[in-house]
């Protein structure tokens, strides 16, 4: 059978050493009453036949559409070398670096990843990753709750709605008070957020660019919240962070991000990368693995997992989080991607994406009956209001091979006619021109 190397002679020799006559004897302790009632599975297939089946399944997904879908998950260009490097078996067939001397490759890479993302977000400290950008928000909120021993969480409705639902799932039994502050035409209502903050507030949570694409400055809110003793949390878009005011510069205490846009394929929702960074003051509240630099017994530089007294394998139920496996290989991809693009490449990616969005917004706003929802500056996405339901328009456009954006009504009742349109550097002017022409046609 595939992947098991034993010959009949090997098996016989091993059974003899163990002192049993058959493999079945090794399972004698499992009583008959616990034996499977059924195990009705297909027979195995050759590699060639399995490949044919999976290629057929892959062909039944529509990946040839021209797509303006983003909403937190972006199709940026990934250099070929990212795959080549992260597919090295020495990286991807290793476990968590529990034995540092035999894992310096993984450990140094994580240390470099921590350095890269803290620099990108303008923060002090990073962990080795959590599952995704949504669980990163949840973990950030829990850090704040532990740190402040308070229960109120003030969150803007402009934070990705999927992440807000997820936060609700995790905290349902925890007696937290989640206060969601409604958006105003896609903008964060900073005045209302500030009003909602008081001495019982554990944290404020915002996103910039926000779910509607608005680039916002939370500095004033963060200053006010800090004065009340609350922790400031921001969810960022790491590609954009290379060019816009950083979480650190705004006064964030914790900055998190979905790292998918830094070198990870869309892959139907995962695996992705939860980036988590914070200030020095909060590092002992951080969940998950952290790598630190140290020296070996001969004084040479080396790297180890550190501050482990926060973690489940030491603290069990008193740990800062239950996380054990994280998204290490995705963090490695992220680091390789950042190194290959470099500072300039990333800034160009961001600028080109914003430039495309600017061009698209201009084009679409010229269509009679279409208006841009956002009033302020946007990054690489923006929302438009259509004269009829966005769902219908979207359906018609898919028929033409174009996904024009994400209809907002699903998560924002009242915005049924609105569409969130996303551009990256991969879109050509021609893609955008056709989008505009056909959209006009459909309306």
């Amino acid at each position, binding site marked *: 059978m595939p992947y098991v190397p034993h010959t009949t002679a090997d098996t016989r020799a091993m059974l003899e050493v163990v002192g049993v006559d058959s493999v079945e004897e090794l399972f004698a302790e499992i009583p008959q009453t616990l034996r499977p009632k059924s195990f009705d599975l297909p027979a195995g297939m050759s590699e060639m036949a399995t490949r044919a089946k*999976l290629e057929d399944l892959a062909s039944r997904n529509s990946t040839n559409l021209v797509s303006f879908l983003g909403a937190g998950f972006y199709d940026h260009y990934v250099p070929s070398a990212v795959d080549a490097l992260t597919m090295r078996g020495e990286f991807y067939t290793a476990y968590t670096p529990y034995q540092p001397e*035999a894992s310096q490759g993984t450990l140094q890479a994580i240390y470099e990843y921590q350095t890269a993302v803290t620099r990108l977000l303008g923060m002090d400290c990073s962990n080795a990753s959590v599952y995704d950008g949504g669980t990163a928000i949840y973990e950030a909120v829990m850090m704040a709750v532990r740190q402040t021993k308070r229960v109120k969480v003030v969150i803007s409705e402009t934070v990705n709605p999927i992440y807000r639902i997820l936060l609700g799932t995790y905290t349902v039994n925890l007696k937290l008070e989640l206060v969601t502050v409604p958006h105003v035409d896609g903008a964060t209502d900073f005045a209302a957020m500030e009003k909602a903050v008081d001495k019982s507030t554990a944290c404020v949570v915002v996103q910039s660019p926000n779910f509607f694409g608005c680039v916002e400055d939370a500095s004033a809110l963060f200053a006010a919240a800090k004065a009340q003793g609350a922790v400031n949390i921001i969810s960022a878009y790491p590609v954009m962070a290379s060019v816009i005011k950083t979480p650190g510069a705004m006064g964030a205490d914790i900055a998190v991000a979905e790292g998918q846009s830094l070198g990870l394929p869309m892959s*139907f929702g995962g695996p992705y990368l939860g980036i988590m960074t914070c200030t020095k003051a909060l590092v002992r509240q951080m969940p998950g693995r952290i790598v630190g630099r140290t020296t070996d017994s001969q004084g040479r530089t080396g790297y180890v997992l550190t501050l482990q007294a926060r973690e489940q394998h030491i603290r069990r139920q008193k740990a800062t989080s239950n996380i054990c496996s994280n998204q290490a290989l995705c963090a490695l991809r992220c680091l390789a991607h950042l190194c290959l*693009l470099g500072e300039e490449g990333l800034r*160009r990616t961001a*600028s080109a994406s914003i430039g495309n969005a600017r061009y698209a917004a201009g084009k679409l706003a010229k269509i009679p009956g279409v208006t841009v929802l956002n009033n302020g500056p946007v990054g690489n996405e923006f929302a438009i209001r259509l004269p009829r339901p966005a769902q219908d328009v979207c359906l018609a456009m898919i028929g033409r091979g174009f996904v024009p954006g994400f209809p907002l009504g699903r998560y924002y009742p009242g915005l049924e006619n609105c569409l969130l349109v996303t551009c990256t550097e991969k879109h050509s002017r021609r893609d955008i021109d056709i989008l505009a022409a056909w959209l006009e046609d459909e309306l």
Partner: protein
Amino acid sequence: MSTVFTKSAPGREGVWPKQPEHDLSDLLPAGLIREVPAGLPSLSELDVVRHFSLLSRKNYGVDSNFYPLGSCTMKYNPKFCEDVAGLPGFARLHPLLPQLPRGDELTQGALEVMYESERWLAEITGMHDFTLHPMAGAHGELTGVLIMAAYHADKGNKKTKIICPDSAHGTNPASAAIAGYEVVSIASKDGIVDPDALAEVLDDEVAGMMMTCPNTLGLFEKNLPKIVEMLRSVDALLYYDGANLNAVMGKMRVGDAGFDVVHLNLHKTFATPHGGGGPGSGPVGVCEKLAPYLPISRVVKDPSGRFHLRYDYPKSIGYVAPFYGNFGVVLKAYAYMLRLGREGLIKVSENAVLAANYMRKRLDDVLEVPYDRICMHEFVASADKQSHKGVRALDIAKALLDKGYHAPTVYFPLIVKECLMFEPTETESKETMDQFVDDLRDILALAETDPAAVQAAPVTLPVTRLDETAAARNMHITEDM
């Protein structure tokens, strides 16, 4: 080896997209523009390729080293599975597509992979339904405990506690605690759960118990039927930590055995690579009465054979992942299951158990094996004998590194002194295991004659033992600018 940041030379061109047409200052107001550059490196492509290639050479992995790390099931990760997960038809698929009007039709292939994977896992475990959303084992545990909580809340049960055996993995009590439960630990007897100890703490406030079977000592939990009965009597649920499923495929189905909730680690049993720490995938299976509480979305098949995502489950705990979990990992596991099929999966468990017993028998005269009877897919030994000479489990682990092996798991489970946990897996040949045993025996012999030599290990790796205390004290966790 210097870091990638020190190799940077400003101006050196990497993989840049074409020059954007706009200046940033035309696109954003000055107050919103980043003031200082991030300080990311500027490198040529070869600089980057060489840096990472050199780093990779400082790592042990299954591809290059025998990796008998107990509880982690470090089996071979088939290249084929990696390859198909990269098919553009999957890799390029945006997760929001199904949320568009008639979006299900755009993603039939992916939905079928999810539906079929759930069916396979349900049949392997005897559970009624599965969700693929949890992104690792611990995430599955949290999901499972939240499902248990939703069940009790729905029934109006006042439940405040979850029981974990003292042999449990640290994630079990941690997951129960962050879901809002008080954790009650019970002592094992003869390496397994003691029904008398359970009886002492079992009352109406117990929401459930988390068990690993075979447990983290590699032992089958013989009293399982009795334990199930006891929990049922107070309407408590039984949770199965499936990290050790590799031992029992086709031999026991946890659903048949009475477990109510289970998580599996696809990155163990189903051969998806561990990636130096992740990503994993921790699907959760439930019995019929818990199915209404599963996370949304759920994938269904209609009578015409089309697949759909559905969200209308009013009792669902909600979203635990942004979309459908680590789909790319699930896809690899699905490819693996298709390759092996029914007989192959049974053979996996049979050979994993055979290998562990073989290694146990080849070592039990030189290492103390506290529970020296037939084990399942792994066994726990103790370096207690050696520690009297000053050689600890950690020293033996380091000495193994020098011989080119990854070390076994050390100091877990917490209930065995100087613990070394070996899990050879079914994919390692007898020759590999024999050589390993010989080398380990040499190390143990050396521990008698020259303990200092073992304590000095490793000496052949890029670094010797590292100062972890200094690491925690100095906290250099990022490189200074």
